[in-house]
């Protein structure tokens, strides 16, 4: 089958949008489908389509798809997929699929919003026009806000506002920086362009790089989140209704790290290098700070939220190493965190569904009531503290090993985070699983939960034992991103004004898998 990448990407983007529209228009009524069924259908379709991306990538010569839209402002639909985007899309689609398994009783509007979030995530992963990226980046705000306020408690409403204003404040900096980048390109080249390809060709002066870096950084730092920008996160994750924390915790952060990698690192390498030590310090503070507060946290989701901050810290630390292995480790951490966070929050959701109470102390002795549940709790806790043979170990190892070479002392503090991870995670397990059971009725996991958790666990283990495919792929991507100075890229892609823009943006390609 000959699949054109452009078609695949379009279908990939349009499927959730159309799904959302259909759900919104209550199209299900006409063919007697429940909203949940439609949602599941769409998420399956997205997963299926995303499997075509690599084959399309392998067939075509390039990963770039370009539709002219508003050329005078440099705004076009430019889509691009490399291994990183591909993996991220696959994981994203997968998480939405899993959520569909877990939550089957919601209204059409609920699922429509979820599909919009999916659109937004997929869109931002594949768009390489800065403004289009920004568009998708912001697109998720409203659905999230809607879901939080409509289905959540009054606390959730507050959290929704906090999330909204925080993220917005960050992303407006991004907007400003994007426009400034375009304008700076305009001053140099005489054309206003927001295409990543064009901007990669352009060498920003160091001062410009610094300013722009900060603009981009603030937005991504809020989304990731990086240490002082994280305050929205515990509130949001803790108050997200209906298990939506699974989606939020599992997927939102990747936008930030992806952005840091693709844009900050790609466009402003010098500024990034200058800023790397600070970034490493912030990341490490995040790791230790998250761990300490997770330890202190009394609520289940609060603990998981702070744990997320800690985990994301490793990812950021990886990027800050500016070493191919470190960066690829950081990228791998994205995927490991997706799997683990989804697993952990699924567990939290399962607990909430069975017994009211959000504090850790509301539960006790579940191990004797629900062995399967306990098995998964232990497994995900262990994965979360990155036991070897889980995916998180590989990423964390690469990150720490690379960062040790660059920032030895900082790394020692990060290792402290590794230890503290065990402290809070095992404390959590002990608190909820062990001891005399507190309540009589705590049913074990139902089949859907089992399937979702088991599939996550299998992925965690497979990627932990055989991560070679992913690490090589990400390694190549990272290496290209790091080594490709603007002039080199220029050499690779030739004249960018060329009609054949598609030659451009050789960040990495799925073809470039060297292993075996």
């Amino acid at each position, binding site marked *: 089958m000959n699949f054109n990448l452009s078609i695949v990407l379009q279908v990939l983007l349009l499927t959730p949008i159309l799904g959302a529209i259909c759900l919104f228009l209550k199209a299900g009524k006409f063919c007697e489908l429940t909203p949940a069924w439609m949602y599941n259908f769409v998420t399956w379709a997205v997963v299926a389509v995303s499997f075509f991306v690599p084959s399309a990538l392998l067939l075509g010569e390039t990963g770039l798809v370009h539709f002219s839209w508003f050329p005078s402002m440099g705004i076009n639909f430019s889509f691009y997929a490399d291994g990183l985007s591909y993996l991220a899309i696959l994981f994203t689609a997968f998480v939405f699929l899993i959520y569909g398994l877990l939550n089957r009783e919601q209204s059409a509007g609920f699922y429509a919003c979820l599909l919009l979030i999916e659109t937004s995530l997929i869109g931002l992963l594949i768009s390489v026009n800065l403004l289009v990226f920004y568009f998708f980046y912001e697109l998720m705000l409203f659905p999230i806000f809607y879901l939080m306020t409509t289905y959540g408690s009054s606390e959730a409403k507050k959290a929704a506002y906090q999330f909204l204003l925080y993220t917005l404040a960050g992303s407006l900096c991004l907007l400003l920086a994007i426009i400034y980048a375009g304008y700076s390109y305009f001053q140099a080249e005489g054309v206003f362009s927001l295409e990543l390809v064009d901007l990669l060709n352009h060498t920003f002066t160091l001062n410009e790089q610094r300013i722009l870096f900060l603009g981009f950084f603030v937005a991504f730092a809020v989304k990731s989140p990086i240490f002082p920008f994280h305050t929205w996160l515990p509130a949001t994750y803790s108050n997200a209704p209906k298990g939506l924390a699974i989606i939020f915790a599992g997927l939102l952060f990747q936008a930030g790290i992806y952005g840091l990698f693709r844009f900050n690192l790609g466009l402003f390498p010098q500024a990034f290098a200058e800023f790397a030590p600070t970034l490493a310090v912030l990341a490490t503070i995040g790791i230790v700070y998250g761990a300490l507060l997770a330890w202190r946290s009394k609520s289940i989701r609060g603990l998981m939220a702070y744990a997320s901050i800690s985990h994301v810290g490793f990812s950021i630390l990886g990027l800050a190493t500016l070493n191919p292995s470190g960066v690829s480790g950081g990228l791998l951490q994205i995927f490991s965190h997706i799997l683990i966070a989804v697993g952990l929050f699924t567990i939290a959701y399962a607990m909430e569904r069975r017994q009211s109470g959000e504090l850790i102390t509301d539960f006790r002795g579940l191990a004797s009531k629900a062995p399967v549940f306990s098995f998964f709790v232990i497994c995900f806790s262990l994965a979360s503290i990155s036991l070897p043979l889980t995916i998180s170990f590989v990423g964390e190892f690469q990150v720490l090993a690379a960062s040790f070479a660059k920032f030895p002392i900082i790394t020692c503090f990060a290792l402290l985070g590794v230890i503290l991870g065990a402290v809070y995670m*095992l404390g959590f397990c*002990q608190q909820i699983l062990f001891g005399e059971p507190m309540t009589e009725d705590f049913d074990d996991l139902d089949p859907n939960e089992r399937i979702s958790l088991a599939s996550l666990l299998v992925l965690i283990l497979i990627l932990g034992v055989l991560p070679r495919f992913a690490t090589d792929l990400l390694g190549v991507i990272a290496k290209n991103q790091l080594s490709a100075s603007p002039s080199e890229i220029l050499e690779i892609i030739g004249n960018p004004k060329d009609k054949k823009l598609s030659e451009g943006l050789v960040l990495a390609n799925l073809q470039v898998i060297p292993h075996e």
Partner: protein
Amino acid sequence: MVSTYLTFVLLIPLLGSLLVYLIGRQSPSVSGPLATIACVASFVATLLAGQSIFLDSTQSLTVNLFSWFSFNNIDINFALLWDSLSLFMCLIITGVGSLIHLYSIGYMSEDDSRPRFFAYLNLFIFFMLLLVLANNLLVLFIGWEGVGLCSYLLISFWFKNLDYAKAGKKAFIFNRIGDAGLLLAIFCLLFGIGEVEFLRIEQSLLINGAFQPYLYLAALGLFIAVTGKSAQIPLYVWLPDAMAGPTPVSALIHAATMVTAGVYLMSRMSYLFDAFPMLQHLIFIIATVTCLMAGLIAVAQSDLKKILAYSTVSQLGLMFMAVASGAYGIALFHVATHAFFKAGLFLSAGNIIHALHGEQSVHKMGGLWKKLPVTFVVYLICTLAISAIYPLAGYFSKHEILLAVKDAGYLGSFSWLLTVISMLTVVYMTRSFYLVFLAKPKSDLEHLHAPSILMNFPIAVLAVLTVIAGFIMPETLGQFLSPAIKEFAIKPDTLSEGLAHSILPIVVLVLTIVLTPILIGYQNLAKVLLFFPRHKFFVDEIYYVLVAVPFNKLASLLDSLIETATIKTTISALSATTLISSKSLSLIHNGQIRLYSALSLIAVLVLIFFTVLI
């Protein structure tokens, strides 16, 4: 062929673990035998795989299973190293492991969670084998963490008791600290010489020497890891608490195998440690202090398993004294003999506790020699062995260690400490022996839970091993291990030497038996004398105050200072400012048209001045 066997060695316990759990859930009684069969099969596979090495111990083989991942173009393979050292360790693990599995069938026969127990045990065997078979530090790390995990799971096996669960957590966390050291060491090696494979590190060190500070740091990191896993100061405190697990677990993990992983690791990396005499000195001091302290504490304990646990810590200290002195082979020899007699002791203790329905305090035991004859004999033999009385296995290994330590000359004028340490062992072991078997019964002995043959057989085997190991092993082990680690030879003592060296322990033993009942009469005196040992030198409390409390304080400080005070206050201050300013602004809009006109006119004036003047 060898690689296939080797794969089997590893895979059988892993698959066994899965099968045991899956099948065991349907019929729990199958789980024990199944797990035992798996372990024995692994033992057999080890023997088969080791054939060639038995014949020629210089042989070594690297089996590359698959490529795991890569770091900075360094391929990190999932590879196994098969040489005499790993074979030696594998034999101990699977051999002693099999016996303990067998024992556990009897010991756990009434527990409903048997499948889980045996699955964990098999999993432990897998990880332990992985640890000793690893060809590089990263694969070793898998095993290293894996055994820690199994230890955690098994310690908190009876999780309904929160104290047990907490003990498991404590063990894991202390191990985790050590693991961080190991990671640090790996990073240092990666950064310093860019290798993680044992053989390559060795080569690189041989060629380039080891004078980099990073390698020093690596050695230090390894030692931190070792203190965690092998319960040395400062990370030993988890081991006594780990006795919360079922007794076979204590025997297998916390006496015979896992805790000796540190000795194994240091032997593996002996060339690295040898390069840093300063570090060796440090290790020696730590080991000596550990040994002494644990011995003292053991004297004052009343929980039978705790006594044995501190004894283990003490014996491990002894091993590290040997390691620090450069006598890796002798340390490994002691690992083997210690595995036999300490496993024997623990399993005997298991029998006792089993018989007394879970009673662990030695003060509540007594007069058991009649009721548990086999146990009595085994315990006696093992006690004698650990007290280093000729011709039992313990004598040979321990005596060699003392010699090696003296040779190394670290102690100088403190060599009398060695005697003290040895005698402490005799004292606490004899005390426990006396209190358990010889003293007057404190409780009703009629309703004893007699040990089954399944429980008696393994301890008998261990006793036999304890007796014969001393005669067989010294000669063979020297040759056998020398290719893998530094050249060494053990010259077995003659009968007369042996007897001569045994006089002192025997005297102390007899003295202890005589004095213990008397001392028990003077409770107050004992309390005063043993105040510190009884309270374990307050190490737990000190750690609590020095580590846990500060971290807790730090966390709450961060929580209140940064999370709440700074950030949240900033945000609420921002929103409050916004609200206040908007409310005060809306006060101006009070509906008075004259005010509006006035404000507009003032604005006109101000703005005109603003424009024209500026």
